[in-house]
């Protein structure tokens, strides 16, 4: 569990702006199962995410947390149950998958920037070719988000010229350029050097402050405490326990949760 970190940002995080809608459902997962050939990776997942929620999914490696969020934008397909994103149920229908992917942004552990394009081109590619936004407008939006992640001066460089933290911030900006309603983060800080973690977390927190619906698979327990409105603990492909961060960390109920927390928090 050495990769777990307690990095926090050095400012009070104001959660009062982070409004959770009580009526609008962003994501609903009902009785979902997934197998990798004979291996039962996800078991009976039930999850209802309201608009504006900030959810952190924690758990030991191999517990299926990444697979779960990859199912939510259909990078993996599930075999049983339903996943409904923004009112659209995910099936094999390509049209629906496209519809969902347009509204859901995803940030990967290894950034996955396009190395042959400049930062600006990385950011404008999808708006131009998916949404049909004029180039000038797409570039203006891109510059806006680059300023938000505080690296507008890197716009004309190539991904290979940037540090890991900068690349991850570009990756977040790239997702934001599609103006998604939901953001999924798949261990966004695991591949980063410790000193770069903070700059990425800072961006994620400011997103939360603007009311973005977020699901983060992460080992950043400090982030979970500061920002999340709910922490989900997964093990062996199932949701073991979920609660508000305060209660989750101070008063874990399930044996496995206790074990996990005792291993990572000293």
């Amino acid at each position, binding site marked *: 569990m050495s990769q777990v970190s307690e990095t926090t940002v050095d400012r009070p995080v104001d959660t009062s702006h982070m409004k959770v809608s009580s009526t609008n459902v962003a994501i609903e997962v009902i009785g979902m199962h997934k197998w990798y050939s004979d291996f039962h990776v996800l078991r009976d997942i039930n999850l209802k995410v309201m608009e504006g929620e900030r959810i952190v999914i924690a758990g030991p490696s191999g517990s299926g947390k990444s697979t779960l969020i990859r199912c939510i934008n259909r990078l993996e397909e599930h075999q049983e149950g339903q996943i409904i994103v923004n009112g659209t149920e995910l099936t094999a229908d390509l049209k629906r998958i496209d519809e969902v992917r347009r509204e859901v942004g995803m940030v990967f552990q290894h950034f996955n920037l396009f190395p*042959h394009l400049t930062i600006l081109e990385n950011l404008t590619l999808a708006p131009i070719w998916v949404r049909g936004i004029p180039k000038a407008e797409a570039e203006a939006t891109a510059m806006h988000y680059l300023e938000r992640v505080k690296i507008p001066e890197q716009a004309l460089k190539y991904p290979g010229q940037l540090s890991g933290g900068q690349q991850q911030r570009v990756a977040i900006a790239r997702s934001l350029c599609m103006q998604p309603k939901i953001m999924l983060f798949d261990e966004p800080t695991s591949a980063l050097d410790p000193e770069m973690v903070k700059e990425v977390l800072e961006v994620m927190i400011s997103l939360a402050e603007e009311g973005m619906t977020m699901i983060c698979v992460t080992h950043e327990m400090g982030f979970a405490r500061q920002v999340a409105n709910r922490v989900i603990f997964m093990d062996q492909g199932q949701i073991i326990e979920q609660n508000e961060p305060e209660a989750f960390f101070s008063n874990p109920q399930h044996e496995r949760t206790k074990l996990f927390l005792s291993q990572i928090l000293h």
Partner: protein
Amino acid sequence: MTTLDTGPAAAPRVAFYNDPVIRGIIYQVVVAVLLVTFIAWIVGNTATNLAAQNKTTGFDFLWKTAGFDISFSLLPWSRGSYYWEAFLVGITNTLLVAFIGIILATMLGFTIGIARLSSNFIVARLATIYIETIRNIPLLLQLFFWYFAVLKAMPAVRESLALPLDIFINQRGLMVPRPTPDQEFTWVLVTFGLALAGAIALGIWATRVRTLTGKYPREVVLAGKVADACVTFLVAFTALFILFSVAFPLSHAPLVAAVVAVVLAAFSLTRFAAISRGVLTFLIAFVLLDTIVGAMFAWVPSLLVSVLSAMIALTIARVGYVGALSRPPSEARFPLALLVLIALGVPGLVYWLTGATLVFEVPVLQRFNFVGGLQLPPEFVALAFGLTIYTAAFIAETVRGGIQAVSRGQTEAAQSLGLKDGDRLRLVVVPQAMRVIIPPLTSQYLNLTKNSSLGAAIGYPELVNVFAGTSLNQTGRAIECIAMVMLVYLTLSLLTSAIMNWYNARVSLVER
């Protein structure tokens, strides 16, 4: 290496033979002296040997008449031609077979390389079997096989194997129709060039407008719709015409075909475009399958073949239909049909208007031999075929490696951004894969060119055969002939690597 050992300036004095710099110089002088002595020894020996055999040296033989026949030449050649002309004939023949081999091997190699990555078990396995079989057998053996065991075992001239389109195969090679364009046809070729350039320019312009404004230009979209309908009509008409005049003969085949094709074209403009496309796919698939499968299984009753073909074609048509359903509306689609129509339709119109004719001179079997047409000698056919088959296996591996080099994360990132499969390939995967593929691909092209020298073993008159073989034997100028041949290959190789260095410097990914 030795300079690495150089210590700081204040190092204690060392014996001069222990000083790495001086030592390095001594080594080099020794090597140079040895080399010069060795060369002098060889030159001396050669001079003595040549003198003993009463041979002269020099390049004056190039301006003497060669006096031998060359069985296949693009340049004018007679027994009275000079040796330097033989040299040029050798080079052109090498380049010709290399050029054709490169084009065919690229097409075959890319297909097989992609097939090898297919998620379809049978397709991937067939591609693997091809690659593993071909690249583990010497090329020379394969050439011998195609030349001696296959082409030489073809029937004699009188029993030539007749293929479709007036092509014949026999022991003397491949006879194909020769195009004999008339004067006016030049205009058709010129318009074709212009129309192609125009179509490409239009494509680039439309794409630029699409990026700048988010939409394809209105006129282009409109013209694109018309072009879609035209192409649908033309393709449907051709397929139906073949169907009704060959497979299921009808009395008014052209009329029926035209009526059905018009209906399909009309449908392609409405919201039933997908259905029209499905039917079109069915027609093409059925015509192709019925012909090919029918030829493959001549012993199966033709009705059974037709039924089977129809079933397979229905499945394919379903793919076409589903694909058409998820196609973006024509406003958001690259106007490919329009460009194709311009590039092919305009010259076609000129062809019709100017009354130009392009007659194909068909090879005809006379008493003893074929007359007319283009007669490709079996050496050429075997060499081009063998080089294609062999090199394609290596190109396939190159292509596979290039595609696999684009990490899965790139695909996932593109998918999660909502890019459609076509855009994802075009904008993300292909540009990255090509950077990896092109350098080894070029070296495969170079290999193919070098390997074409094996044509000498089956009697194709390429450079080595003509110049290091016949000319050398006749003139006895071994050193000159071999040096000239080597120089040609050296030039080709240096040129290629110069271009590659330039390319690599241009496209290499910028890293920190």
